[in-house]
């Protein structure tokens, strides 16, 4: 029985690799919708999809005839809650470094800004204005 470009998981609306047991539950739900004329699929589509999942390869990832998106889900998987994967790495610099004079001018400017911020944060003496 050819797939005719269809994906049984997509037809039944279940995640890729879902077990036959779970697919049967989905079939029970979806067939009710089809009886009422709801949705794009017919009963024949659902009976086909359930048969494919129940009697297909025990590891559907081995079946080259079944498409899925993304094709390699592991590439975007987040392997653990603690650490990102792949590990964080610095990107290569894309601009030329500054000259010594420019760096010195930036330091001076930064020092003045810090002093201003510190003075502004000091409490004012009582009884004096202006």
């Amino acid at each position, binding site marked *: *029985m050819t797939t005719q470009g269809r994906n049984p998981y997509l037809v039944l609306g279940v995640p890729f690799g879902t077990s036959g047991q779970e697919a049967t539950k989905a079939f029970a739900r979806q067939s009710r919708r089809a009886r009422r004329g709801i949705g794009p699929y017919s009963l024949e589509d659902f009976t086909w999809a359930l048969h494919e999942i129940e009697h297909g390869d025990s590891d559907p990832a081995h079946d080259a005839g079944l498409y899925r998106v993304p094709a390699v889900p592991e590439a975007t998987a987040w392997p653990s809650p603690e650490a990102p994967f792949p590990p964080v790495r610095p990107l290569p610099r894309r601009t030329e470094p500054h000259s010594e004079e420019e760096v010195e001018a930036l330091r001076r400017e930064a020092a003045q800004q810090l002093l201003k911020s510190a003075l502004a944060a000091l409490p004012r003496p009582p009884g004096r204005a202006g």
Partner: protein
Amino acid sequence: MSTIGIDFGTTNSVVAAYTPSGSEAIDIDSPPADWADLGFGRVLPTVFGLGPQGETLFGWEAKTLAHGERLQAVKRLFQQEVSVTLDGQEFLVETIATMLFGHMKAKVLESGLSADRAVVTIPANSRGLARYRTKLCAQMAKLQVLALINEPTAAAMAYSARMPFDQRVMVVDWGGGTLDVTILEAQAGVFIEQASKGIQRLGGLDLDARVAQHIAAATPGVNEWSALERHLFRLAVEKAKVRLSERDFTNVDLPRGGFHRLDRPTFDDSVRGLVERVRQPIEQTLQDLGAAPADIDAVILVGGTCKVPLVREFIADLMGKEPAAGVDPMTAVAEGAAIAAAILSGEIEDNDFFVATEHALGTFALDRTGEMRFSTIIPRNHKLPARATESYTPAMDEAASISLRVVEGDPEHEDYTVLQTVDVPLDTGRLSAQDKSFDVTYEYDLDGILNVNVEDRLSGRTLTQSKVGFGIAPLSPSDRVRIAEGSEAAVAEGRISPAAAAPVADPKVAELLQRARKDVIPYIDEDKARPLRELADALERAGDAERPDAVLDLELALLPYSYLF
């Protein structure tokens, strides 16, 4: 307007109706006193008979008829037979079955219920032809058939009405004529067949024949018994089998007086070989699902043969669990059919059912090595309705047409039946076989109707369309009207009209054909029945010159079975 469920069984039939309080079998016949206490209270034997004055008889009247002709196991004839001879008259199988459906309908009407719409059950292992003929006969009895439903599915629905939770159940449906093993999943009120395997000609009739053989071997003078005496003996054996389900021993009345004492161990020994054949379909269905006995939540036993203690014990040992309680093996199928009828007519909401095909559908095609093989298009255990497509390429560039053989069968056991051959015209303007490739789509519905559609791959143009399922002896519309009207009159008037039967010219030939088709073929294994059937068909076709030889051939072939007639 109420709906009913009909279990049209090989040996017994039951009708049930759905009411707000549940599904219940209806009294449609009254067993004689000596059968009344054996659990047959609501059962109509599926037997048609002609009394001494030519009157039509049904059920117990026909089964216990002392003088006259009777036909049992008409359902077994649905697989391959065209006609049957009764009291020198030839009837189409459809005529007898239509009268039986008509009689059941009349009895329901007498009980005060209406009987216009029905769900009719069929064995899960029924091939398309038997499905089609069953539905046609019920329709010709003026019943609107809402659906055909597999017997095990109906039984599971009756069971689940009492145990309404999600579960996986195995139903062993073993009646008078057939054995079916089916695994179903009940999910939120939806019953889904998952795997099914059966044996078409193995049931209570065969157990009876085995026991009869055992007793006949120990009884002098059996060869001198008349046809009536043999019939009475078979009835006594059947009754003894039923009694032994509740007792340790019983007496089998012999037709010329006296009795044969039969105890349960002796009975068990004589039928053990047949009983153990249930192992194969049980293991096959589990294997189909990659399941173990522990994966099955409940084992439901239905059908009269499942009342035999040896059968119950053997299945319990195989499955490692006792059969589920709460279902009546004799009426569960009809009760489930009535529930199905209530679902389809909207009386019960949020329930549904899906049956599966026990056999595969496909065609014969050359494989890459050049060998002709079965090519599956719709595989076994596919839920219905099913639609599937396969692509094929002609074997030769110059092919102008191909003959597509539409085949049903079991690829694992290489058991095939060619249903029809469809001619597919190809585009002769194209030079290569590859360019002439075509897609074959099969659509198979619940009623056993198979639609075949062949499309040209390059253009998408339909090359041919065909509807398969009209049987071995297609009935014209006028034939159907004749059967429907004749059967209705026969049921109402208690007499066969001339239009319903066609006489056979030579009474000796008629008697011999009747002996082969009625007394022997229904009770023996298919591999032994097939040559007998061929000889009977050859005799029927034989002209005046070859008839004497054909008679002799059939007589000789029947000799080993003289204990049956």
